[in-house]
């Protein structure tokens, strides 16, 4: 078995959809897993809300739990004014959570290990903050970059630093999710390959191979935690950034 921990992230064209200029637009395995994630989310939420019984069943209870969880996150971070962004934050949270968890299934492809996906999600948050901030506050949105109580002679420097800090948000927002998922999956793959390498080295190797096997089991549990945690962190940072658009320089 070839040991190539990067192989799992390869994009494979499944079938072509369109051709723009000389660029072939293909339906890739990444796109297929995104469609799968959306289908899983839709089935979960539609199935969960189909019955709408007073005493919820298992699926309905879980669906209500996710709603309450995201709603509480938004209320505690951005206030109840932030609830108008509930659909946006809920979509991001569910999409990232589902793709992360699907990626933990052996042989599955993890969509969020590609920075183009996480950067697109982070940029959509960034653009939403900019557009909504300017639409709601007009030029007062620039108050975000001018902290109060700063002496006038260092104010230009501070404003530059604040602007740079603001511009660096989509980068740290996207890199965090991408790096966590990528590092986790590579670690899993490397430890799993130790099992086969040691297993091929006779009876002592067989005994030794139980150590990386135990490690892989523990890492899988950790990755499950990371999959949830990163979706949560992405959602809560979205809320913090949206809060700046809702009340800048508050």
């Amino acid at each position, binding site marked *: 078995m070839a040991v190539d921990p990067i192989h799992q992230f390869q994009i494979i064209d499944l079938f072509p959809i369109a051709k723009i200029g000389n660029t072939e637009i293909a339906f890739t395995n990444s796109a297929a897993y995104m469609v799968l994630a959306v289908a899983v989310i839709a089935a979960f939420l539609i199935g969960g809300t189909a019955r709408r019984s007073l005493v919820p069943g298992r699926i309905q209870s879980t669906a209500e739990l996710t709603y309450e969880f995201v709603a509480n996150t938004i209320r*505690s*971070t951005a*206030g109840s004014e932030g609830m108008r962004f509930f659909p946006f934050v809920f979509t991001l949270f569910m999409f990232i959570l589902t793709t992360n968890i699907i990626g933990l299934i052996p042989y599955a492809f993890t969509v969020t290990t590609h920075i183009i996906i996480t950067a697109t999600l982070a940029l959509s948050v960034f653009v939403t903050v900019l557009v909504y901030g300017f639409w709601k506050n007009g030029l007062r949105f620039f108050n975000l970059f001018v902290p109060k109580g700063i002496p006038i002679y260092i104010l230009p420097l501070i404003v530059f630093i604040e602007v*740079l800090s603001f511009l660096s948000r989509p980068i740290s927002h996207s890199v965090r999710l991408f790096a966590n998922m990528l590092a986790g999956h590579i670690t899993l793959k490397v430890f799993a390959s130790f099992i086969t390498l040691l297993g091929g080295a006779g009876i002592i190797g067989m005994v030794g191979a139980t150590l990386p096997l135990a490690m892989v089991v523990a890492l899988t549990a950790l990755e499950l*935690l990371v999959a949830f945690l990163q979706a949560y962190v992405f959602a809560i940072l979205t809320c*913090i950034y949206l809060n700046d658009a809702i009340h*800048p320089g*508050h």
Partner: protein
Amino acid sequence: MSDGTRGTGDGNEPPDDEAALSARLQRLGNRLAQANRPSENDSGPRQTADPSAIARGFRLSAELVAGVVVGAMIGWLLDRWLGISPWGLIVFLLLGFAAGVLNVMRAAGIVRERSLND
């Protein structure tokens, strides 16, 4: 009592149990709303604590690197457009580093979030 169609067997149940149930539901809803209210915070953001150390470490390092990368990118572009190489890169790399440190201090909760600066 006037409800003849309802079974006469449930003597201990009041006949208007539908109304009583909806009243009880109403009260429960009110009490739930009361209980949930304190968790709502309109005043602004709350400092979030990442529950795990790994996530915290990743977050802080990403914040610092992002600041430096953005500063370097802007400086390099200014150099190219204005032909002032290498001053744009030098100045903006330093400013980007400062922004990265500011990001880290905000993320770690050492400096308050800017929206609370009033």
